[in-house]
């Protein structure tokens, strides 16, 4: 089961990517024992972590001001999340303070889960989180596409993959057959004992009903990425072209991230780094996936509930 590490280490993300810092504040509010987190509490964490270094020098006042403004902007951004997520948001943000709602319902659990997935640095034994997130990505994709679409998990973390099993070559053979594409026969491409996923967690396509032609259709290849190295995981489609040599160039490259990839105006931030054709971030996933999809899942449901239960029972020690 997951456990929290010390939250005294503040995030080291680039300051312009403020959503990482907002997540940190939400995490503090999640494990807070009492009335939530204020600007001062967050400022103190950064001071104690020696991130605010000029205090006591001639420019100390100015640096202090810059940091207070910075923290305050994070709170502004959190307020915009309150409005944008509406009833799905498990926190209350008011008067420069953010706290967990007193009454939490199913509708809030998915947000909490995605917040945990975005905070792997602060969690041990997070393997279960990434596994469930992959399933969550599957549900998001399935809900996004029309009912006739074929959506499957392809990733190695899937504990009970119904369709794509075994060695990498076996999986790709079947996928090539499903998509009516040609499998590469280059040497050393598929190695013995390679049970990986070749860079794909989710595969999907939209078939034409009752049509024996399996090609010339929409294809989607997705990667779930909880870690901060999400931008390196976006090239799924490029990598798959090594295996499926005639993969059409219009195959869509999908990225699933648990992060709230938005700024205060709720526009995508880090736009320049996003190369995926379609991105599913926290907001999009929450609007697509219902809590019950995961909770009722035969394999993941129990673990998901355990994680939520353990999280809500954990409170940071104030001493």
């Amino acid at each position, binding site marked *: 089961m997951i456990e929290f590490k010390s939250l005294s280490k503040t995030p080291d993300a680039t300051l312009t990517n403020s959503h990482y810092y907002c997540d940190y504040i939400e995490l503090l509010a999640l494990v807070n*024992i*009492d*009335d939530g987190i*204020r600007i*001062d*509490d967050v400022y*103190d964490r950064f001071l104690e972590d020696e991130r605010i270094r000029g*205090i*006591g*020098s*001639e*420019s*100390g*006042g*100015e640096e*202090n*001001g810059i940091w*207070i*403004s910075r923290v*305050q*902007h994070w709170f*502004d951004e959190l*307020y*915009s999340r*309150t*409005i*944008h997520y509406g009833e799905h948001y498990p926190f209350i943000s008011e*008067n*420069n*303070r953010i706290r967990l709602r007193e009454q939490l319902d199913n509708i809030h659990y998915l947000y909490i889960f995605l917040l945990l997935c975005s905070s792997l640095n602060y969690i041990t034994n997070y393997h279960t989180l990434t596994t469930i997130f992959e399933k969550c990505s599957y549900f998001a994709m399935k809900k996004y596409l029309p009912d006739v679409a074929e959506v499957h998990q392809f990733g190695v973390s899937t504990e009970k993959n119904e369709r794509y099993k075994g060695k990498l070559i076996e999986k790709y053979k079947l996928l090539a057959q499903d998509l009516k594409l040609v499998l590469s026969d280059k040497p050393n491409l598929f190695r013995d004992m390679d049970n990986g996923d070749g860079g794909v967690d989710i595969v999907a396509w939209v078939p034409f009903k009752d049509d024996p032609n399996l090609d010339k259709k929409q294809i989607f290849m997705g990667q779930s990425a909880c870690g901060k190295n999400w931008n390196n995981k976006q090239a799924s489609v490029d990598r798959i072209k090594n295996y499926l040599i005639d993969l059409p160039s219009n195959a869509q490259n999908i990225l699933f991230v648990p992060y709230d990839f938005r700024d*205060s*105006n709720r526009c995508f931030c880090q736009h320049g780094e996003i190369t995926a054709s379609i991105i599913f971030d926290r907001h999009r996933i929450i609007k697509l996936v219902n809590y019950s999809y995961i909770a009722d899942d035969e394999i993941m449901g129990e673990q998901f509930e355990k994680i939520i239960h353990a999280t809500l029972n954990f409170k940071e020690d*104030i*001493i």
Partner: protein
Amino acid sequence: MTKQNIKFIQLDNIKLDVQNPRLPSSMRKKKLDKIEIVNWMLNDASIIELMLAIGEAGFFIGEALLVVPDDEEKNKYIVVEGNRRLTSTILLNEPGIANSQKIKIEKVLKETNERPQELPCIIFKTRDEINKYLGYRHITGVKSWGILPKARYLNELAQDLDGENFTLQCRTLAKSIGSRSDYVRNLLTAYQLYLKIEDQAFFKIPNLDETSLHFNYFSDSLSRENIRNYINVDIKSDTPTADVNINNLESLTRWFFEKNENGRSRVLGDSTNLGMLDKVLGDKAAKEYFSMGEGTINDAYHLVSVTADSFIQEIEVALSKLKNANSIIHTVTQHHESVKTKLKEIFSLAKNMKIIIESKNEETWND
């Protein structure tokens, strides 16, 4: 400096300071009781950690409170420096007066034993004797105040230098707090703007008051030339806010703090948004567009930052909206009459734009 002795004073005889710069002006103007101040401090100044420290180790003599005699009550003293420590000690002894953070306070009480009843104090005759030290400690030093309390405090200190011109006041204050004079000038000027806003009852903007107004939006704005010009602040002058344009100050305040139905203001005071606003206010057409309309600062900024990329983005947005409309056209049973006129307008616009683009691309002039 005269030699001072540390004296132990009963907790009941030490009063929290109603003039503490941390407290908002609205509170400082009222007759406050201990409970009100304690609860304000509890919500604003990281008190729990201090309670833990004092509850665990007692009150450290080296952190003696700096107090002055209370003119209104004999044998009572007012803490000029050490209000957080006094608040923490009061709460250790009277936890019941807390309106919030009750779970944490209870935990602190359970885990600690020290409940100081008398505190080490150094008694000064007047506040002035403590003020210089206060300035260093809270503006430049370890436990800093927020920006507005700093500015308020500097403004109070500046009153004592009333005979001197503004530049000299800034230099003197900067020296006394160990900071730079341009920093002091910026804070004092922003504070003068703040006082004007307060004087206008925060322009009656819903939910705007001292606690929700982010003072740094104004102090940061002062480093932007076009924003300064817009509100007519001459930062280098001896009277920087003498001729402030109140109407424009109101607009600026509304852009910063008036929320639309989605809970968003038109300009967020971070450096990106302030940079955009500065460029917009430096351009006549963009300024007019932004001032007269209700769009975001991004829209206005596009007017001054048009590139091939931003232009195509506008076209793509329009195209996407048209595609949306096209996809639902069959689901509308009865269309408005005006639709056809508007579609014709879109057609004409598209045709004209195409002609303009093509004519721009022509290499030679055709007579």
